[in-house]
């Protein structure tokens, strides 16, 4: 067997059907390196970037004002009340965390599954994860009545001799989310080191050279380093895989541990994880589609990538649809009148619009993804992704308020009404996310260069095998 084949077998089994490389054939080591590094080093920043960055700044404005007002006045500025003591903040938290999941899925799980095509999208997907988790992390803090003593949720030796209560899912959350954030950052940075070296070696100015030179920690590309780098990456991937599943499971515990009808359900963990990946891929596409257009990366982020992401969306969307179907059955099968009441209330109660919006956005519209035309055409795909992203927010919102607003005692039933500041905060967090992402696009390699090199046909030694 030729060296080349041996090479393929060992690393990347050719995908069934087309063995065509996931990136355009004419590319060379140099061309990909130039193309990606130039975005950061040489090319002038496109108008699109400035426009988006400006928009993000406006969002930041909202963010700053609303947080200040919130901390000055207290939770009363939001729509939260009794019985609906959780409203927007927790919804936003779950939503953002969910979005993050796609990044980890792409970088970790697809790596373990030898899905070579992911190499050209994993980097910015990971970046998306990190910024999404950052946004998510803020909301539990905002929604605390007394955020300034947040640290009481962490165990540390103190003069009160009082410690966190480890039976509470909220404490699990703190650990899960912080771990997730840390691991994501490590994974992201580890993968970026060799590319930072590329940036270093190609930077013209002393400043840039120094900046990237320090960031890449003096990476030389020695074969031993590569070996350890690879094994560390694989292990991180291996760790991140169960982690990403656990994080949203723990988030779902925030609801399932409660005895509230509509929350107290065993299908929530898979339900939440599927939903998370669903929304995550929507976000990946929302980011990828404009980027490839603006920076002319169609040769690296090809139709095939869009197609695969879309397929994954479709799949997770169907899982979600299944759980939607399963919930009423669950309630009926349990014979619990309160459960049934909640299911009924979701579909036909005063807040039914949230439920039907969810169904429309998460189940009905995404069925268009069955058509290849939708999957490979940027515009419709972008639209569907936006719809899904919105639908997923609405789903979490629906889950939270419909259960709370009508639980056991009718005497305390009341519907949730969002305040202006609720929406301002949500908008603000989106601003924060976009801002971070734009900075990333501008100053860091948004596509993993060395992994793209590995995709090139001549990346493996040709001929010259012994025997």
């Amino acid at each position, binding site marked *: 067997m030729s060296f080349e084949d041996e090479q393929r077998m060992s690393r990347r089994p050719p995908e069934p059907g087309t063995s065509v490389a996931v990136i355009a054939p004419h590319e060379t080591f140099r061309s990909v390196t130039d193309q990606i590094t130039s975005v950061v080093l040489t090319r002038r920043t496109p108008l699109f970037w400035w426009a988006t960055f400006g928009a993000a700044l406006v969002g930041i404005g909202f963010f700053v004002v609303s947080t200040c007002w919130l901390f000055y006045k207290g939770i009363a500025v939001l729509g939260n009340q009794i019985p609906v003591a959780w409203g927007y903040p927790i919804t936003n938290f779950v939503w953002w965390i969910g979005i993050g999941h796609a990044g980890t899925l792409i970088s970790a799980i697809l790596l373990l599954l030898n899905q070579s095509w992911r190499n050209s999208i994993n980097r910015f997907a990971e970046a998306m994860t990190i910024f999404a988790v950052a946004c998510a992390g803020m909301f539990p803090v905002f929604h605390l009545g007394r955020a300034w003593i947040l640290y009481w949720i962490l165990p540390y030796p103190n003069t009160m001799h009082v410690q966190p209560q480890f039976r509470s899912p909220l404490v699990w959350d703190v*650990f899960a989310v912080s771990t997730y954030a840390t691991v994501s950052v490590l994974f992201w940075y580890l993968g970026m080191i060799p590319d930072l070296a590329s940036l270093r070696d190609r930077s013209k100015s002393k400043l840039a050279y120094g900046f990237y030179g320090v960031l890449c920690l003096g990476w030389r590309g020695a074969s031993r380093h590569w070996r350890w780098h690879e094994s560390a990456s694989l292990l991180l991937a291996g760790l991140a895989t*169960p982690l990403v599943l656990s994080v949203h499971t723990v988030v779902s515990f925030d609801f399932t541990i409660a005895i509230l009808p509509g929350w107290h359900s065993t299908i929530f963990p898979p339900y939440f994880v599927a939903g998370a990946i669903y929304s995550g891929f929507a976000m990946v596409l929302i980011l990828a589609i404009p980027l490839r257009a603006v920076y002319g990366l169609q040769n690296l982020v090809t139709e095939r990538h869009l197609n695969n992401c879309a397929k994954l969306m479709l799949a997770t969307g169907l899982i979600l649809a299944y759980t939607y179907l399963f919930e009423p059955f669950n309630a009926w099968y349990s014979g619990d009148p309160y459960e049934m009441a909640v299911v009924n209330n979701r579909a036909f109660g005063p807040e039914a619009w949230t439920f039907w919006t969810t169904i429309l956005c998460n189940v009905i519209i995404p069925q268009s993804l069955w058509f290849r035309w939708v999957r490979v055409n940027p515009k419709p795909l972008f639209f569907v992704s936006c719809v899904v992203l919105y639908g997923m927010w609405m789903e979490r919102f629906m889950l939270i308020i419909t259960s709370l607003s009508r639980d056991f005692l009718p005497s305390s039933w009341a519907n949730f009404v969002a305040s202006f500041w609720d929406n301002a905060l949500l908008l603000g967090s989106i601003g924060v996310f976009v801002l971070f992402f734009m900075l990333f696009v501008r100053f860091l390699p948004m596509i993993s260069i060395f992994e793209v090199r590995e995709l090139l046909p001549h990346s493996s030694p040709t001929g010259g095998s012994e025997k």
Partner: protein
Amino acid sequence: MSPNLLYAIALEFDSPSALVKATKSVRERGFTKYEVYSPYPVKQLDEIVPGTDPVPLMVLSAGVLGAVTALVMEYYIAVYEYPINVGGRPLNSWPSFIPITFELTVLFAAIAAFIGMLCLAGLPLLHHPVFNLPEFARASSDRFFLMIEERDPMMEIVEEREWLNKLGALSVSEVESR
């Protein structure tokens, strides 16, 4: 240049195959102190270039440490530091302690993987002789380098040096050890 200023002889290649081929022959020739640089991991080199991979072991032990830390902390706090009746549940509600145990396991392991890799590779190391070679800038793009270090005993022998020139490298150059 005087030999004590010399760090290594650098052979530059433009394809992974040439590199692998050359490395193989260098090893067979009996050279021991050499290092290979490539813009991306070339699998075959793992068999050719000697060296072990202790990263998995580090990760495993760190993971175990994390798990133990978590369980001990939770048990101590819930049962000894302030034993108090929470919702009629037993003090040692171990099932509730599992999630955090898992999280800390992953956290410790991940940190170990990252730091372990850096320590093994001796990074950060901003200054290194290889950077003295101007062409080395392309090692992070499209060039492959084989460096036979000065301290390799075989470098004493003149004809061995000349032999290196015959390995079909694009160029053979000397790297100073400044």
